[in-house]
């Protein structure tokens, strides 16, 4: 429960402003907390008088925490391909492991029948070693050809029980976000979703997991003081992979999954590859939008490419839609959709008021425009004054290089 020190509280109201839930307010010069307090701690952080605190009941750390050692990365593999996030996680895992002086291992589940001509899982395992894994636990079974929450979860949980890693990381992808929570529940382990930053606390070696909350208005750093492993999913494209190094040595440990581990209460009947609906603007975390500055429909090919690179959706200003360069469902603004993505990249959009009303709630707005006086720069978090035809292709190249390297 939130503790308010009545002596120290000066009734300044900083806590009231900081509370996303309107759960704390100042009455008669004293902060009062309501029932809907979630103990998020935002008020504690802003209080300049130190009048607020949340007594932690961490208690004694269980004695056997030290028997857990090593950093594990779940290496997502689907349709015969490693997910790029697997290599990014190895980069992050390597840095954490070096601070802890422990090993990095990857867990690779799938069926070698997929992409057999490219070397199958064996090649993927070697790729993982070249990117920083000291050891790869590899389960190759035809029963793992389709992703299954049950089978994948059973195997990962069993391996963790057996080998006791202190940290388990996975990509915050559709697959990771689906089965990792089950694994954490099976292991009674703490799990932090969608981390953007990972570090090791110097004094006790605990994993510091930082993630955005409340639509990105607050960042929270989270630890798991009493349980192991410490589990986290990490957003793709956040962590940096290590440079590929063929000379790196590592061990591939083949796992024979028991029949019971492979059994699944769900069954994939059909798996369809489809470009995600790029028009589904409302749900997109990243939106790349183009305007009059793109000059013609061909200009939008570049916008699509940037959106694809970032895994985002494509949008447009009214001027571009009216010119017929892109269909109406992509329109953002007064007569189009209203979006509030995490990132909105406005390319060649001047920022007329009709457009701004549709996107100004985005967490981060990036403007690329030739005209330094364009109103879009007034709402932008970051801006580049320059020619979109020069800036955007270079940006795509930079981003691709960063995710490949």
């Amino acid at each position, binding site marked *: 429960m939130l503790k308010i020190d009545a002596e120290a509280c000066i009734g300044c109201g900083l806590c009231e402003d900081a509370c996303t839930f*309107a*759960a704390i*307010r100042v009455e008669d010069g004293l902060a009062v907390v309501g029932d809907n307090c979630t103990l998020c701690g935002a008020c504690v952080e802003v209080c300049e008088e130190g009048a607020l605190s949340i007594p932690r009941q961490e208690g004694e750390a269980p004695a056997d925490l030290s028997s857990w050692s090593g950093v594990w990365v779940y290496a997502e593999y689907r349709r015969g391909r490693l997910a790029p996030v697997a290599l990014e996680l190895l980069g992050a895992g390597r840095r954490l492991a070096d601070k802890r002086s422990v090993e990095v291992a990857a867990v690779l589940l799938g069926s070698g029948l997929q992409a057999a001509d490219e070397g199958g899982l064996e090649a993927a395992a070697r790729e993982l070693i070249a990117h920083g894994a000291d050891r790869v636990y590899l389960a190759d079974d035809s029963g793992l050809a389709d992703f299954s929450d049950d089978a994948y979860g059973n195997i990962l949980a069993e391996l963790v029980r057996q080998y006791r890693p202190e940290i388990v990381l996975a990509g915050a992808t559709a697959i990771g976000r689906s089965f990792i929570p089950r694994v954490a529940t099976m292991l009674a382990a703490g799990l932090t979703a969608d981390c953007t930053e990972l570090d090791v606390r110097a004094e006790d070696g605990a994993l510091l997991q930082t993630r955005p909350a409340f639509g990105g208005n607050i960042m929270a750093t989270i630890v798991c003081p009493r349980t192991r492993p410490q589990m986290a999913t990490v957003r793709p494209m956040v962590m940096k992979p290590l440079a590929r190094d063929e000379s790196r040595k590592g061990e591939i440990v083949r796992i024979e999954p028991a029949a019971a581990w492979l059994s699944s209460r769900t069954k994939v009947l059909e798996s369809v590859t489809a470009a995600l609906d790029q028009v589904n603007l409302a749900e997109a975390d990243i939106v790349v939008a183009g305007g009059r500055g793109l000059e013609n429909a061909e200009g939008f090919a570049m916008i699509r490419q940037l959106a694809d690179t970032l895994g985002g959706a494509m949008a447009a200003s009214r001027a571009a839609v009216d010119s017929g360069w892109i269909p109406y469902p992509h329109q953002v603004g007064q007569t189009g959709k209203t979006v509030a993505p995490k990132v909105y990249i406005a390319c060649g959009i001047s920022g007329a008021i*009709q457009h701004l009303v549709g996107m100004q709630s985005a967490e981060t707005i990036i403007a690329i425009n030739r005209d330094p006086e364009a109103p879009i720069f007034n709402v932008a978090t970051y801006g580049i004054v320059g020619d979109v035809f020069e800036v955007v292709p270079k940006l795509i190249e930079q981003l691709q290089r960063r995710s490949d390297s």
Partner: protein
Amino acid sequence: MDGFFADSSLLGINKKLSGGEPHRKGGVLDYFLTEEQEMIVDVARRICDEMIVPQRAHLDETEEYPREILNAMAQADLYGLYIPEEYGGFGGGAFEMALALEQVARGCTGVATAFAASGLGAYPILVSGSEEMKEKYLPDIAAGKRFAAFALTESGAGSDASGIQTTAVQDGDHWVLNGTKQWITNAGEAGIYTVIAITDRKRGARGATMFVVEDTDPGFSVGPKEKKMGIRCSSTREVILKDCRIPADRVIGRQGLGFITVMKTLDLSRPGIAILGVGLGQAALDEAVRYAKQRVQFGKPIISFQAVSHMLADMAIQVEAARALVYAAARHVDAHPDKASKPSSVCKTFATDMAMKVTVDAVQVLGGYGFMREYPVEKMMRDAKILQIYEGTNQIQRNVIGQELNKEYTK
């Protein structure tokens, strides 16, 4: 806030609210609504804000009938508001209907017209129909399963209803109708039509009879959709009756009662048109104030210029005066349905003239943007015009009021 969540104490949160709900912004008075009436407002408000406002520009542009929105309104029980509980309705009156219509009209007068037209089509059955007829038709209308439409106007019979040419002739246990009704709202979308036809021209005012005609009756058809200046998503067509043969039990009330039923129907429904003016006026005021706060000229938001703020003040005065009048008139009509004529004409005239003026002023406040279709106020201005025309032009309303005055002061 929702008054009926008496036990919910979102205290901390309520306290932080800087203004009321959108539909209360710019409003002035407390009308002492009951808990149930607040619920009606709330249900209609959500439909307005979450469904109608996002779609209205598209509906105006394409002239598509708002079937999806109307179905949602049916699912929300709004089609049964004014229908007695024994026929599956909510048991409200003109006032409850007005509360819902105000919210719907705040979103789009075209959608509101399509919704209100079903009520107008059902009123003749409600005021003059037999018990059997009510049981047959009202439950479907209340559930929104079938929409209704009211068919009075003809090419030669507008303000002067005595010019009706459509005839109904008895043939055994059937009636055969012939004629063409013009500008019938909901035509082609409704399943149930209440139609007036001459049954005995010699009897003058007592020579007309109302019938229920269904869209599946032989000889029933509709004309092409009219191209209108405003309320473009509502369906307006001819209803063509060519040897349209219907059973004898489709007579509403008795033979010869047609004009009386029409008058009673319009007396009941006029507050519903009046309130469309209030909803529309409120919407125009909302847009104008929001814009005036946001638009910067000469380094200041234009609301800080007296020329603009006085226009906004006049709009607010007009809207609230009309709202108070229409609410009072609707309550009067519910309490004294036999003395409804003058109050319903008074409120219809005032509120719809107000809507015309306020929407024109809203366009003025928005200036060049107001003239552009990208902003909603030019549509509001186009939509306002019909309110002064349909269900009795405002000139006819003034005739009615003038005649009443003449009568009252003679006594």
